[in-house]
């Protein structure tokens, strides 16, 4: 079996809250099972690999998000086609916002997104900051949110889960994140996959299934990660 191609979107620009750790988690969870992976960093101007299996993108600073915004949006059609083709995508925070239709800033500017997910984000004056976790079909997702954009979901997506402790997408409707088929968006940093091993394996399983190589992922000892998740859930926001 050939290894998975893991695409890291803007690893330098969109990396502010340790989201690169998600890539490390996926890589190691493959390696520990004797499965190969190739990581392809994609920065401004670089081509997107046609054989991408999983595509990850993290959060950035507001200013940086502006720097890469045009490049990101120029890939909108390609990204939508990849999403329709079942490529597994995980966008955190800034990348999640750019997966959406648009971002309306506080001062009324409209920044176009890619429309990969049916969500829209508006800027606000308050930052939603703190520990957060949601229950999902792939186990408890545990992380830390830090964003001022408020995201509302359209009918074309489902929330990733209900927020139990945090503010979530917008601080109002108790939803966190969005999912459509194999595309996931979330505000959970942490990095989210570190303390949500079931979710990490779900992404890998879907990537193999899409290629027609369904695998039985050998179980790993995740007792530390689950213990760390349990601690995190019990900590103040």
């Amino acid at each position, binding site marked *: 079996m050939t290894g998975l191609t893991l695409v890291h979107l803007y*690893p*330098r620009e969109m*990396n*502010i*809250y*340790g*989201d*690169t*750790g998600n890539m*490390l*988690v996926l890589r*190691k969870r493959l390696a520990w099972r004797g499965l190969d992976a190739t990581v392809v960093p994609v920065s401004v101007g670089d081509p997107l690999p046609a054989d991408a299996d999983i595509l990850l993108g993290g959060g950035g*600073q*507001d*200013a940086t998000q502006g720097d890469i915004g045009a490049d990101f949006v120029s890939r909108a059609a390609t990204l939508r086609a990849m999403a329709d083709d079942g490529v597994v995508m995980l966008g955190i925070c800034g990348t999640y916002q750019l997966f959406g239709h648009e971002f309306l800033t506080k001062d009324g500017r409209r920044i176009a997104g890619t429309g990969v997910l049916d969500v829209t984000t508006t800027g606000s004056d308050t*930052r939603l*900051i*703190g*520990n957060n976790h949601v229950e999902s079909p792939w186990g408890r997702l545990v992380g*830390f949110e*830090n964003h*001022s954009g408020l995201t509302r979901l359209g009918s074309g997506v489902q929330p990733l889960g209900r927020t139990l402790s945090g503010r979530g997408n917008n601080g109002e409707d108790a939803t966190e994140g969005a999912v459509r088929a194999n595309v996931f968006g979330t505000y959970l*940093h*942490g*990095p989210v996959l*570190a*303390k949500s091993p079931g979710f990490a394996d779900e992404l890998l399983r879907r990537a193999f299934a899409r290629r027609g190589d369904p695998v039985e992922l050998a179980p790993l000892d995740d007792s*530390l*990660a689950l*213990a*760390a998740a349990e*601690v*995190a859930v019990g*900590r*103040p*926001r």
Partner: protein
Amino acid sequence: MDIRPADLLPIWLGKLTLLALRLSGRRGTALPGLVVEKLFPRFLPRRLAALRHGVVVVTGTNGKTTTTKMVATVLGQRYPVLTNDTGGNFVRGVLTSLVMQSSWLGRSSAEVAVLELDEAHAVRFCEVYQPERLLLLNVLRDQLDRFGEIDTTAQILGKVAARTTEHVVLNRDDPRLVALAPGLPAEVGYFGVAPELRAMFPTDDELYGGPVRIADQPASAVLESVELGLTTQVELTVAGERLAVELRAEGAHNAQNAAAAAAIALTLGLDPQTIAAGLLAVEPAFGRGQSFSVAGRRVVLQLVKNPAGFRQSLRTVESLRPAATVIAINDDYADGRDMSWLWDVEFASFLQGKSGHLLTSGSRAADMAVRLRYDELAVDGVNPELAGAVDEAVSLVKPDETVVVFATYTAMWHLHQVLEERVG
């Protein structure tokens, strides 16, 4: 400093508050300052304005405490210095220092104040008093759960620089700081490191893969070379003169801090030889590479707060050669609640085969262990209880061997107390 009758009341009040705290066995640095601040809001600016050589504010993300100690020690070669070295990294701590260093008759010999302030408190301080001098060390990602973004932090520092009246000394190797220079009312100067050392001191953007940028600003103090061992041997060019200095504060980052301290000292008229003598006399600051002798073992306590600082501190493992390493991560407000930053530090190359026994501790001991596991480092113990973890590490090593403890802010404070008790 002359006695002003109006100052006697606040000084007495502050001293009595401090006395009451001590008698009740507490060691607060904020309360006396708070009392004086509330009742006598003009006391602080009036006392500071009376200092012959004014106020030096030291701020930035990393290295504030050690650099403040360096500046205070260097300036102490020439002037009586007032400084907030009691760990009161805020305006009230400054007030407490003022009260403590004045006599009951209101006399203080201090001629210059060297104040460590974090970014947010520096802004608040500048609203009360416009400092004569400002030393800006760096802007790195740290406590983003408190400040939001690193660019926001840079803007905050810009406000402090704009309020400074005489000299602003900037790290020329940090582009976010260099960008603050245009339009400042004060005279701008720089410190820096030699181009061939630049890779050892990555800026925030460089840490995350950006190209290394060589500055072209002329610097009055430049770090030319650094050799790490049990002590740190550095060479500096200060006002054109080459100096060789042995620092007791460990790590390359402290060699860079020495250049910063030298540059600000020059603006106060100190000559290079006096600066060198001052740097030689600097001892490690509270919990920043301090050594404790516990049951014949050497325990070194290193504060870690953010990815850049953690990387710099991890480099000391190479020279300390520990037989055990403890990483203690708390997530109280002062530590930062977000654990994401642990994933911005690469541990394998610093610890693989060099750490000795490896233990994690603190409220997020499990998070730290997960992080190390993904760097393929074997963890020998996960014990959230701080004292227990350090005792275990000490028990695992032989006499004369070294235990290194990396600890976040509140974990460091707690362990400092524990280690002082263990030294007995």
